[in-house]
């Protein structure tokens, strides 16, 4: 494992903004897609 602490993990060796920006957008997209699909499915 490359991380000694949580802060190190979040910093991603100085690339935190790029790495987490990628995963955050992906998570947001999947979340919205699933929510959108669930919305009218119970009707």
């Amino acid at each position: 494992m490359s991380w000694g602490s949580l802060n190190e993990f979040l910093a991603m060796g100085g690339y935190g903004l790029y790495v987490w920006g990628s995963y955050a957008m992906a998570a947001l997209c999947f979340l919205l897609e699933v929510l959108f699909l669930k919305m009218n499915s119970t009707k």
Partner: protein
Amino acid sequence: MIFNYAAPQAFYPVAGKMIPWFAWLAALLAIAGLTVGFFVAPTDATQGESYRIIFIHVPAAWMSVFLYLVMAGWAALGLVLNTRLSGMMASAIAPTGAIFTFLALWTGALWGKPTWGTYWVWDARLTSELILLFLYLGFIALKGAIADPQRADRAGAVLAIVGAVNVPIIYFSVVWWNTLHQGASISPMRSPTMVATMLTGMLLMALAAWMYSIAVTLARLRKIIRMREGDAAWVQMQRNSV
């Protein structure tokens, strides 16, 4: 036997039973993939930690192209055989394909900045992937603009088939042109040029993306079937039983 399920009323309950399985598979594979990607795979010698974007970027890019081929395949099948479910299947895939294409571009931009010094460059790989996004959006818009579902399926199919020309262009863009985007690290012709744990994380995430795509596509397909055949008696019966 398999053709029994080609009718929407037969496929609808089967799809409903399959969704949770694929959703759970996707979740488990994503957890495994992220664990390997962030806690097992080592720091890259040249790119440092920024390379960890690969675990979402490459699966998203693969799915964007793969889903387009599946979508165009279903659309073409519908055009030839005139089966109702095919056009619905193509419609169900398109939004998920568009999302993965957007994510491939977004994560690529965030990876490009620290590695190339720019978010965007009009090189062949990036441009053809952007065209793929427009093809998905065009397909969705075109089908949405035509009220008659059968005519919409046919028009959408023609667009999807013509647009499939873009797929080999995306794949070979890094070979045919001198692009800023690197060539393939994985190809059917030779062994991968990656550390095994990096490769494992990437493949697990690719499988997760695949299972996720199946789950959401089936869910959307059921929605489309309900919308299109909502008046039919069998839909009413399903509604009361499920």
